[in-house]
């Protein structure tokens, strides 16, 4: 090689690699559907609080009603989605990202 590659060229090269396409697909196929899911689930809660007050006010056990349980389920779903993403990222994304980062460092250092 006569000319050392510029940083921009290295990025372009990595962008075309199968590894990167795979990484992007794995990231998006998790992040986008789950974003839509929690947003719809949250909006359902907001809409029910506004327009389904009869249903929301139904008591389940003692003074604990549907509204309180629905609200607490929003906490549960947030914790669960965060945990699922963390697991997905650790297993499915980080190893590929680390490989690509290493390839970049190697090219830049050359």
């Amino acid at each position, binding site marked *: 090689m006569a000319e050392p590659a510029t940083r921009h060229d290295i*990025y372009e090269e*990595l*962008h075309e690699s199968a590894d990167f396409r795979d990484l*992007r697909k794995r990231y998006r196929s998790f*992040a986008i559907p789950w974003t839509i899911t929690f947003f719809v689930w949250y909006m359902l809660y907001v809409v029910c609080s506004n327009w389904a007050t009869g249903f929301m*006010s139904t008591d389940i056990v*003692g003074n604990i009603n549907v509204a309180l349980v629905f*609200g607490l389920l929003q906490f549960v779903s947030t914790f669960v*989605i965060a945990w699922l993403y963390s697991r997905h990222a650790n297993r499915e994304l980080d190893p590929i990202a680390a490989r690509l980062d290493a390839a*970049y460092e190697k090219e830049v250092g050359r």
Partner: protein
Amino acid sequence: MNARVYLAETSHEGLTATLFILVVLVTVGITFWASRQNQSAADYYAGGRSFTGPQNGLAVAGDYMSAASFLGISGAIALSGYDGFLYSIGFLVAWLVALLLIAELLRNSGRYTMADQLAYRMRQTPVRTAAAISTVVVSIFYLLAQMVGAGVLVTLLLGVTDESAKNLVIAAVGLLMVFYVTVGGMKGTTWVQIVKAVLLMAGTILITFLVLLHFNFNISDMLGAAVDKTGKPNFLDPGLKYGVSTTSKIDFLSLGIALVLGTAGLPHILIRFYTVPTSKTARGSVLWAIGLIGAFYLMTLVLGFGAAALLDTTSADSQVLASTGNLASPLLAEEVGGGAGSLGGAVLLAVIAAVAFATILAVVAGLTLTSASSVAHDLYANVIKKGTASEKEEVNVARVAAFVIGLVAILLAIPAKSLNIAFLVALAFAVAASANLPSLIYNLFWKRFNTRGAVWSIYGGLISSVGLVFFSPIVSGKGLDPTGKNLSLFPEGVDFSWFPLENPGIVSIPIGFLLGYLGTVTSKDTESQARFNELEVRALTGAGSEKVIRQ
């Protein structure tokens, strides 16, 4: 704020004042300690990028759990029952936007400010100017709400009613925050935030435990007691506050959307992701923050319903009512500590008051640092000096900017202290969701997005959200409440409002996204596409991202 508000005449003021001084001494000490390690611009702006995930998670949670959360949400639950809880849910769910779409990608592609990420592939001057203006506007709104809150709270808790003493408190808080930011930089501010978050969690756990103990850990009994004590049969159902009319329901929907989309566009939260070494630690910080904030909001639920069950929140003499809920947590602490006049009550009240004070100091420092960073890094170094300023000059400008912003905040907060400005926090979220989030998302996920799209989206979101609030009942024409208190910012009788909602998000967020789209497709500019692939690789892999500074 209200002469009827006073606290029990027992000796808690002396103890409270002592604890306040202790908080100030500890935080000043941390700041001096941190200042010895501040050398480069990355130290000043990003704490050397050397914080761990749990540390930054605590600091993020600390930045987020402002006095508005700590005192405001429990107070809202104590007064409006279930409707107060709705805030906590929006505030928490919002973190998934930050986790899934923003935190890691931003950490990999930016350096010090929110604008860095846009400037990666756009024309520097227009996008940095727009992003800096939006950053400063959001931060000043948030800052004013905190400082006015500080003035009210500190004077109430110390039993000071004199106007000039309130001004003195506001000025003292302002000068302290300028000190933290100019001397301690991001490292000092982050440590202050961590200490505060630990204090806040510990204080909240203690009071929650005592409240639950009072009801033998039977939540249902506590809820029942809240209904009985307040005499409001609908206290546990949604709609007590927002269900009164169709307008108020749409207003609540609008608030709900702004809360969930605003968090990931708040500049003082975004720049926290630059204080960690890698995108993996940025993810770790968000996970820690979600855990801490979630636990905290679950506890405020107990505090709020506990306050409704144990304190007087309805009569004409109610201190909770007179403070619009802000004193619910401190007074609940006094009650579960043994009641007014008891030693235990005085101690717990003083402790919770000191925690609230530490909260305000830490949050205002974070906000000032954010604005100062954006002025110095975006406006001075990149727009005015076109990247020719030395690091040292840039950091010096940041220090001067912090001083000026502090001064402006003090001068604005003093006249604003008699106004009802609680809406400013919700407005900050609406502006963040309308002006900042659309361009961040487009920039990361849409190749064609360009400079005009970014600029239109930021200014469009900013002007529409602030403009709609200006023409809403918050500013004029809401009239008087039954006790004769003016509910609008402008004097009663002045009415130029035409926008019916108090929360602009439902209109201004779509405007932000739509203008980002229209600006992009009407421009022939393709320059911004040249570095999109580069941004994408960098954002997802961290290749070439800013590294940790070792000393």
